[in-house]
C-alpha cells in the first residue's frame, strides 16, 4: 500500500478532477483492483510476449537466410541440416567427401554463384569453430574489424559477439574442444593452438557467434591425434586415398556408431607437411578424400534447373540438398500451431479481464448509486458521471496494459539471457514492435467497451428517485 500512497501524493492536486476521483474510487477497493489488473496484465503481457518472440525468432531466421538457396550435406533430416549449418543450433547431419561435393564446389558451375564449404564439429567455450573459405564473409556481409583475415592453418577470426564475450584479443591462443557443447574433458589437448588474428565487425547475423578458420585447420586438429570419435564428425576426412570408399560413406550415414581411426604415423606426417607447405596454391578440391560437413550454395538465378538440382542431389548422390526457405517455412508452420494456441489463450484471458472490469464497475454502481446521485446534486452533469465511470475502466485498462507490457518485456529480457546461454542468439526485451501500439490501442478500446454499459447506467441514475430511497 506504500506504493499507492506515493501515487496518491503525486496525483494530489488542488482540484478533485475525474481522473483523481476515479483513482480514489479504484484504490478504495485495492484487492478487487489488483485482481482485475493482474488478469489484464497477464492477457496483454502474454499476447505481447508471443508477438515479440515470434517476431524476433523470424527476424533471426530471416536475417540468417543470407541469400542461401541450397544447403548440401550428409543424408539425414533436412531441417537438421539447415539448423546445423545455417543457424548453428543443431548438430550436423554427418560428413560428405570433397569428391562427392566437388561438382558443387566448382567455381565454373553454370548455375552456382557461390558455394561455401563448412566443416563443423569443434568449439571453443561453446562457440562453434567453423572451417570454411573466405567467401563466407561475402555471404553475411561481414568485414574484418580488427587485425587481419585468417590465412594460415590454425589462424582464426572471431565473430564480434564471440570476441566480446570471451574478451579475446589479437594474439589470443586457445585449444579447441571436441563437440559443440562446452566440456573441458573434450579439449583437444595434444593438438596445436588456434591463434586469433582478427575480429570481425558485428553484423547482427549468426556469423557474430562463430569462430572462422581454414578448413585445413579442422583437419589439422583431427589429424594431430587418433581418438574415439562420433561418426558424423568431419574429423574423419583424413583417410588416405586408398581408403575404402564404401566404408567412408557409412561414416557419413551412421551418426551414432563409434569408430577408431588409426593413422599410420608415417603417412600422417607426410600429410601434415603437405598441408602446410602447399597451402597457398592448393584448393580444397585438391583433397578429394577429405571431408567437410556441408556446402552453402547461392544460385546465379532461380529457375527450373536450380529447382531440379536439389531433387537430383537427393536422388542420385549420398548427399541431401535442403532449401532453407522451404524448411524454415515448415518450421514456422509447426511453431505456428503452438503459438496460435497460446495466442488464443492470451486473448481469452484478456477477454475475461475485460469482463472482470465490466463486472466490478457494474456491481460497484449499486453501492455507489447514492454517491453518484449526490454528485449530480453537487453539480455533476450526466456526461460528467458517464465520464467518471468510463475513466475508471480506462484507468484499469491503461494500468493493466502498462503492467502487461512491462511483464512481457522484462520476461523477454530474462528469456533473452537464457537463449543467449543455450543458443548463442541475441534476443532483446528492449525493442518495441509496431503491433504493440495496436495492442495498446486494442486494450484501451477494450477498457472503454467494458466500462461503457456501467457508465451509461450511471449517467441514467435518477437523482430524485435515488435520493428519495436514501
Amino acid at each position, binding site marked *: 500500500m506504500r506504493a499507492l500512497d506515493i501515487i496518491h501524493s503525486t496525483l494530489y492536486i*488542488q*482540484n*478533485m*478532477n475525474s481522473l483523481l*476521483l476515479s483513482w*480514489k*474510487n479504484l*484504490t*478504495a477497493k485495492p484487492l478487487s483492483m489488483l485482481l482485475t489488473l493482474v488478469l489484464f496484465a497477464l492477457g496483454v503481457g502474454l499476447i505481447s510476449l508471443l508477438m515479440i518472440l515470434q517476431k524476433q525468432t523470424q527476424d533471426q531466421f530471416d536475417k540468417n537466410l543470407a541469400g542461401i538457396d541450397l544447403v548440401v550435406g550428409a543424408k539425414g533430416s533436412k531441417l537438421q541440416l539447415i539448423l546445423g549449418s545455417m543457424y548453428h543450433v543443431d548438430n550436423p547431419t554427418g560428413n560428405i567427401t570433397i569428391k562427392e561435393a566437388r561438382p558443387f564446389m566448382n567455381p565454373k558451375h553454370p548455375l552456382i554463384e557461390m558455394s561455401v564449404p563448412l566443416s563443423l564439429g569443434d568449439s571453443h567455450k561453446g562457440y562453434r569453430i567453423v572451417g570454411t573459405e573466405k567467401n563466407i564473409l561475402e555471404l553475411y556481409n561481414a568485414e574484418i574489424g580488427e587485425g587481419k583475415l585468417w590465412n594460415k592453418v590454425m589462424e582464426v577470426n572471431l565473430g564480434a559477439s564471440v570476441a566480446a564475450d570471451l574478451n579475446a584479443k589479437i594474439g589470443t591462443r586457445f585449444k579447441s574442444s571436441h563437440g559443440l557443447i562446452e566440456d573441458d574433458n573434450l579439449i583437444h589437448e595434444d593438438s596445436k593452438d588456434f591463434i586469433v588474428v582478427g575480429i570481425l565487425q558485428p553484423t547482427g547475423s549468426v556469423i557474430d557467434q562463430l569462430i572462422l578458420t581454414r578448413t585445413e585447420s579442422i583437419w589439422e586438429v583431427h589429424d594431430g591425434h587418433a581418438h574415439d570419435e562420433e561418426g558424423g564428425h568431419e574429423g574423419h576426412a583424413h583417410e588416405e586415398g586408398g581408403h575404402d570408399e564404401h566404408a567412408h560413406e557409412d561414416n557419413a550415414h551412421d551418426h551414432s556408431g563409434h569408430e577408431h581411426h588409426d593413422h599410420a604415423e608415417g603417412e600422417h606426417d607426410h600429410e601434415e607437411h603437405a598441408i602446410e607447405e602447399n597451402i597457398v596454391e592448393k584448393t580444397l578440391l585438391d583433397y578429394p578424400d577429405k571431408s567437410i560437413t556441408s556446402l552453402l550454395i547461392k544460385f546465379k538465378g532461380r529457375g527450373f534447373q536450380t529447382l531440379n538440382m536439389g531433387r537430383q542431389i537427393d536422388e542420385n548422390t549420398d548427399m541431401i540438398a535442403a532449401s532453407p526457405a522451404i524448411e524454415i517455412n515448415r518450421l514456422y508452420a509447426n511453431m505456428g500451431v503452438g503459438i496460435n494456441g497460446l495466442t488464443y489463450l492470451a486473448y481469452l484471458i484478456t477477454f475475461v479481464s475485460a469482463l472482470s472490469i465490466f463486472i466490478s464497475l457494474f456491481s460497484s454502481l449499486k453501492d*455507489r448509486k*447514492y*454517491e453518484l446521485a*449526490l*454528485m*449530480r*446534486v*453537487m*453539480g*455533476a*452533469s*450526466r*456526461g*460528467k458521471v458517464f465520464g467518471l465511470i468510463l475513466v475508471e475502466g480506462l484507468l484499469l485498462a491503461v494500468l493493466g496494459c502498462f503492467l502487461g507490457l512491462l511483464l512481457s518485456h522484462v520476461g523477454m529480457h530474462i528469456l533473452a539471457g537464457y537463449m543467449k546461454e543455450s543458443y548463442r542468439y541475441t534476443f532483446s526485451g528492449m525493442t518495441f514492435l509496431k503491433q504493440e501500439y495496436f495492442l495498446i490501442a486494442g486494450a484501451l478500446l477494450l477498457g472503454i467497451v467494458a466500462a461503457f454499459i456501467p457508465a451509461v447506467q450511471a449517467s441514467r441514475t435518477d*437523482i*430524485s428517485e435515488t*435520493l*428519495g430511497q*436514501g
Partner: protein
Amino acid sequence: MLRTENLTFAYQGNSALQFPDINCPTGEHCLLLGQSGSGKTTLLHLLGGLLTPTQGKVIVGETDIAKLRGARADHFRGQNIGIIFQKAHFVKSLTVEENLLLAQSLAGASGDKKRIKDLLERLNVGHKLNARPDRLSQGEQQRVAIARALVNNPKVILADEPTSALDDVNTEEVIQLLEEQAKAVNATLLVVTHDGRLKDRFSNKIQISG
C-alpha cells in the same frame, strides 16, 4: 431569494400534486411544514432542481430553474443551491476534505482548501479534515454535510428533515447552526420538516397539506 409560482408536479401515471406558492426573500429563513406523504420531498426536489415541474416556475435569484435543462441545470444547481439531506451521504472513497473539494470542483469552482478548513472549523469538525466520512459520528457527519452545502456560497440552502433523528438539545443546536451559517453566506434557508418542534422558531412558515 427563492420563489415558486403555480408549481405542479405529476409522477408518471399519478394525479398531479399542486403546491402552494413559496416566497422566501434573500437572507430569510423559511419553514416548510407537512406530514409524511404530503409531497414534501417532491417539493424539495423541485426546489433543488432535481425534478422538473410539470407546470409553474421555481425562481432562484433571477433564474427560473424549471426552464433549465441538462448540464446547464446541473451547473446552476451546483453553484447556487446547497442541499442538506435527512441522512448525510458522502463519496466513501474520499476524505472529508476531498469530499468538499469535490463539491467545489463539481460546481466549477477551483479548490479552496483554506475555505474548507475555515468552514469545518466554524462547524467544530476542523479536526476531521482528513478522516473518512464513515468514521465520523452521526452528528459530525451532519456538520460536514452542512459544510458541504455551504462551501460554494449558494444563494439557497435547502434542508430536508435535518432534525428528525435528533433530541431537543441537538435539534436546537442544528437549527441554530443552520441559521448562523446561512446568515454568514447571506443565503436563503428553507427547512423542510414534519417536526412540530421547529414551528415556533420560524416566522416564515408554509404548510403543505397532502
